[in-house]
């Protein structure tokens, strides 16, 4: 006799969950960037005078000349849609009734990936100017989602 047959009383599979949680702190520049969003509803960048580049989101070092950056600039809340895509499924794979529009919105020499709202999907286009719609100040927690969405100007 060999041991080829499963014990009918044996559990077929061991089902469990890996308890993995994490806290990500934003770092020196990120802290100031998200504070500005939370407290003032501002989008900040940092300017490198050497390379004449303005980084958004803000960074503490210039990625071209590696100089430390301490010139902070408010880049406003209106940016340009560089590219966008429609999402027809949710994160868990379930289908969506209305597609969500995710866009890369350019600010200065950088930009943010965020969702577009208050816009007809057929009218979304490259180069359209969009404005950040912030959540009410009391609901902001210091996250990129403190900007609820971007809407056409």
């Amino acid at each position: 006799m060999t041991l080829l047959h499963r014990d009918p009383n044996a559990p077929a599979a061991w089902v469990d969950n890996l308890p993995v949680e994490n806290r990500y702190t934003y770092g020196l520049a990120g802290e100031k960037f998200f504070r500005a969003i939370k407290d003032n509803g501002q989008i900040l960048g940092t300017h490198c005078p050497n390379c004449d580049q303005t980084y958004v989101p803000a960074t503490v070092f210039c990625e071209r000349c590696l100089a430390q950056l301490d010139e902070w600039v408010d880049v406003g809340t209106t940016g340009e849609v560089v590219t966008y895509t429609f999402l027809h499924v949710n994160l868990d794979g379930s289908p969506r009734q209305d597609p969500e529009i995710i866009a890369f919105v350019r600010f200065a020499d950088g930009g943010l990936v965020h969702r577009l709202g208050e816009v007809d999907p057929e009218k979304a286009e490259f180069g359209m100017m969009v404005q950040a719609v912030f959540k009410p100040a009391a609901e902001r927690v210091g996250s990129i989602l403190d900007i609820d969405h971007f809407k056409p100007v």
Partner: protein
Amino acid sequence: MTAKIKEFPGISLSEQDFKDGKILFNFDKLNGIYAWDTGVGIGSYLASLKNGVILGSHCKTCRKVVVPPRVVCEWCYRPMDEFVPLKDTGTVNTFSLCYVTWDVQRIKEPEIPAVINIDGASPLHGIMHMLSEVDPNAVKIGMRVQAVWKPANERRGSINDIMYFKPLEEK
């Protein structure tokens, strides 16, 4: 090595700093649900743990009894011949006094993980489990121990159906 470093670079943060909102952070939780096929060997092992028995398997050619049971002999690569129920007593092969929990919290009373050679299995064949009901300073390699089982209605076919091993009370 770290003893030589007087001051670490960076900003140290306490739990309180997170609570007070001194620092912004993003909290995330991984969806880590998995299902692991137990197979014939471990499946039978878990099913018999539910019945309060530690199961091994026997290779007649090599005259080996291994625990947990495997379906193929690791020495001769032939199918094992039979499952054999083993005793729930054993001998401490090795152990550790662990003053840190799995999620890195310091504890006063150490947890004592140990490899326990199960009686009835071939020499030096054992399973890893916890020791308890014992003075940490009195734990010795070669110590005789016995399993402490959960009540039968609480067992669910898991290695935790054995709560821990405690020193064997000689009869």
